[in-house]
């Protein structure tokens, strides 16, 4: 597989060309021809089969096989089926969908058209992160252009198939990138994730069968259906075939988005694509798949290849493909605090362990960052994180707890360095007779300086 034709970018091939976001540019390079050939003529089940055979796995983070997901779509329910494309790219360190949306939106739309035909859905939602203003404008323009050409709307490509595409913008909440949270948001409610089961493929948006796919997945679909499953499988590993866009950031010379075949080594990504670490720095750790992925130490980085299985075996995950490189000068407590602040801010507040746990972790991380954590807080951090994992509706609690646990596992020493014995513990160790009566009286008169205001009770109605 690795000895196949040398890889050159597929999805990101044209992003540097001027005007790549226009329909003229896209059609000039053969765009919409696959859709024209397949929609209305190809057997939908055969398209699902191609995607299933290609081994394409969801590019949003979870890596669930796309074709399999499509085949789970409930049929014969009497309800319409929906496609919801997840463009709420907000995992810190991830910025791949943004390029597709801003530079090549028609590629996505063709994928949407093909996917809708394959799953026989007449209505697609494309949900964008609220901050993607340019992406939103370009995608809206692309939808208008495609509509004018008859690629979207009634009887697309002159075939007996209608397709409505609705572009929606979120309001800037991380949780709306969780698939069911996004569906709640599309429905007009708070972006609360929903309990699974039922999975969206059975009961999704407006309680109708819904397929939720990431922008990159849908963009890849248009290429896979054009070239076939075998073409896609020539890259990557057996269980992670194909190519994927990685977002390289942090302490490398050339950060950016790189589309590479799956299965290349992490070292290659950092050294070859990233140009190595910035001058005078050595590698401390790598966050491989977006902020929520447990980090990798340099030893693990040496063993790591960029595919779903390798990262899973190292106790981390490929996630969204946001690789953040930390150099030896990074204060890990600062990174921990920043991470926890993010999850505390973004927890939707639905489930108890996440709502309360993210806040607690942030407060503990803040103490470590400021150097006033107690020695017992190191274990406490681990226990709080443990109590959060696997106990919530969605995986945001895990997303916050997993990095914390991995920081603690690999860099416990840095946590311990930032603790000190609290003053009151030292005071307690002072023999009683050393505390003078005067000092006692003063502390009574003026109130002990370290008395925390615990008057949380409401004083008046």
């Amino acid at each position, binding site marked *: 597989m690795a000895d196949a034709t040398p890889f050159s970018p597929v999805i990101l091939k044209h992003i540097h060309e001027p005007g790549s976001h226009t329909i003229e540019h896209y059609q000039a390079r053969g765009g919409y021809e696959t859709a024209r050939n397949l929609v209305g003529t190809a057997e939908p089940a055969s398209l699902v089969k191609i995607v299933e055979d290609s081994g394409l796995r969801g590019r949003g983070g979870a890596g669930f096989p796309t074709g399999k997901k499509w085949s789970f779509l409930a049929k014969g329910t009497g309800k319409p089926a929906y496609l919801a494309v997840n463009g709420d790219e907000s995992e810190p360190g991830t910025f791949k969908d943004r390029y597709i949306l801003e530079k090549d939106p028609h590629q996505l739309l063709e994928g949407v058209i093909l996917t809708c035909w394959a799953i026989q859905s007449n209505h697609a939602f494309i949900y964008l992160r609220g901050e993607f203003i340019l992406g939103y404008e370009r995608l809206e323009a692309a939808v208008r252009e495609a509509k004018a050409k008859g690629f979207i709307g009634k009887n697309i490509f002159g075939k007996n198939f209608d397709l409505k595409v609705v572009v929606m913008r979120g309001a800037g909440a991380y949780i709306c990138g969780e698939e069911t949270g996004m569906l709640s948001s599309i429905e007009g409610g708070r972006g609360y994730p929903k*309990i699974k089961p039922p999975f969206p493929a059975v009961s999704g948006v407006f309680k109708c069968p819904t397929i939720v796919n990431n922008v990159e997945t849908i963009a890849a679909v248009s290429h896979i259906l054009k070239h076939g499953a075998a073409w896609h499988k020539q890259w990557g590993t057996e269980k992670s075939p194909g190519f994927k866009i990685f977002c390289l950031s942090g302490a490398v010379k050339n950060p950016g988005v790189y589309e590479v075949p799956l299965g290349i080594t992490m070292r290659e990504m950092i050294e070859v694509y990233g140009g190595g670490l910035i001058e005078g720095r050595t590698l401390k750790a790598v966050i491989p798949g977006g902020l929520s992925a447990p980090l990798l130490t340099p030893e693990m980085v040496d063993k790591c290849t960029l595919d779903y299985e390798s990262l899973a075996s190292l106790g981390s995950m490929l996630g969204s493909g946001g690789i953040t490189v930390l150099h030896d000068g990074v204060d890990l407590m600062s990174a921990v605090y920043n991470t926890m602040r993010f999850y505390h801010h973004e927890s939707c507040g639905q489930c108890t362990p996440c709502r309360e746990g993210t806040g607690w972790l942030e407060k503990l991380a803040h103490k470590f960052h400021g150097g006033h954590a107690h020695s017992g807080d190191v274990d406490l951090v681990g226990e709080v994180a443990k109590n959060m994992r696997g106990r919530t509706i969605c995986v945001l609690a895990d997303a916050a707890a997993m990095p914390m646990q991995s920081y603690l596992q690999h860099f416990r020493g840095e946590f311990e360095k930032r603790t000190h014995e609290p003053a009151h513990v030292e005071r307690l160790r002072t023999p009683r007779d050393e505390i003078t009566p005067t000092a006692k009286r003063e502390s009574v008169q003026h109130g002990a300086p370290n008395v925390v205001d615990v008057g949380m009770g409401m004083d008046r109605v």
Partner: protein
Amino acid sequence: MTKQVNMKIDGKDVSVPADWTVIKACHENSVEVPHYCYHPDLSIAGNCRICMVGVKGMPRPVVACAQPVAEGMEVSTTGKDVEEARKGVMEFLLINHPLDCPECDQSGECKLQDYSYEYGRDHGRFHEEKVRKSKATMGPHVKYWGSRCIVCTRCVRFTDEVSGEGELNVIYRGDRSEIALFPGKNLDNPLSMNTVDICPVGALVSSDFLFQSRVWHLHSNPSVCADCAVGCNSRVDMDAKNLIKRIVPRRNDAVNKSWMCDHGRLSFGYTHENRLQKPKVHGKDASWKEARAAALELLSAPHSVALVSAWNTNEAMSAMKEFLNTEFPSIRIFGYANKTEADQTFPGFTISGDKNPNRAGLKQVLGVDPEASIQALAAENAAIGTLFLVHNIPGFELTRELKAIMDRAQNVVLLDFASGELLRYGNVAVALPTLTSFEKSGTFVNRQGIAQSFEPVMEPVTYGMPETEIVAGLGTALRATRPATGVLA
């Protein structure tokens, strides 16, 4: 009937309908599963995460409220995993909770207290500053203490699914989440106080009960609300002085589910205020003996009629009918009712517009329709000797119809618990104090035709008697005036 599945709960074999959830299967089989957000009459939210149970074959505990039962499922509600999960959730719930139990109205009936005792840790490990949230007045009867809130969203779901106005929602995110009103809205629907009942903690409290009593000083008795024809099953809480402090619903799926209207809860004031304390003869306090004699004398007047309201119990009506038919066969019995208005219908509840608890009973026992009956009496327009008026309607607005009938009567013998307008109006010669439905036993037949019996919840606060006893007393007094008959004579 739905399919049954066989499953094991803590090793016990049970068979439950296939569409149940694990928590329901546990509760119906008397296995305790702690829960905050789950409520049998609301949709499933699955957010509190305390109801975790172990299911054989699952890698980690699952929430029982969202887990459908399945054939062959083995559920364990105990075990290390489950206990750890609950302990963790309890700790999370309490870290930002103000722990202000001493001044919290919910204290004593708070799920946080109960489950903390049962499943929580013995000490706190949270030494950071707590999150402070707002306080708000949600509506005329409901206040909100944000810091105590555990965001279980029961109240939100209630306003969406049962009262239907949807006034409430969660605002902000994460541990800043709190319940708030939509702008321009007010939680003033007639079912608003149910949000207080279903709040598992002291976040939503009743402004009417607030700081009135510690709940452990109250004693409770079951009752049936007499406020309308629905007949909500209720629980009446009283303090040591026998004063009613609040009324809350009792769950009855056939009648009121878990709900009750605000009016029904708050209309207990008539029990303590403005009562007819003692029998009165011609406006003066009299003994029961004097009053009975006076009443009997008046009842024997020619052209007398009896008028019985739809607020009386089946027992009272039956006794009345039996007594009058036997002793005063010439007295005809008519019925009448309190005002009726349009039903107030909500997505999950209906408040009957018929403000009589026992219209159906009146029809069953006396065989008359109250409105038609009083109209027939009004239409007669002939002089009435004595009007035997069995009233017992609190807050009754004297109708022109009834006034006209009272005007036609030479004398009125009134049975009522209140010393109200009716007593002052017209020619009330004898007034006999009765009891409210809180002080007597009886049966009301609700609008669905369900006969619901109730016991007194408290000792009578006046010298009044239930109608059955009054009638028995009248009968005894009457027979005592006659020559003795029978074997002992």
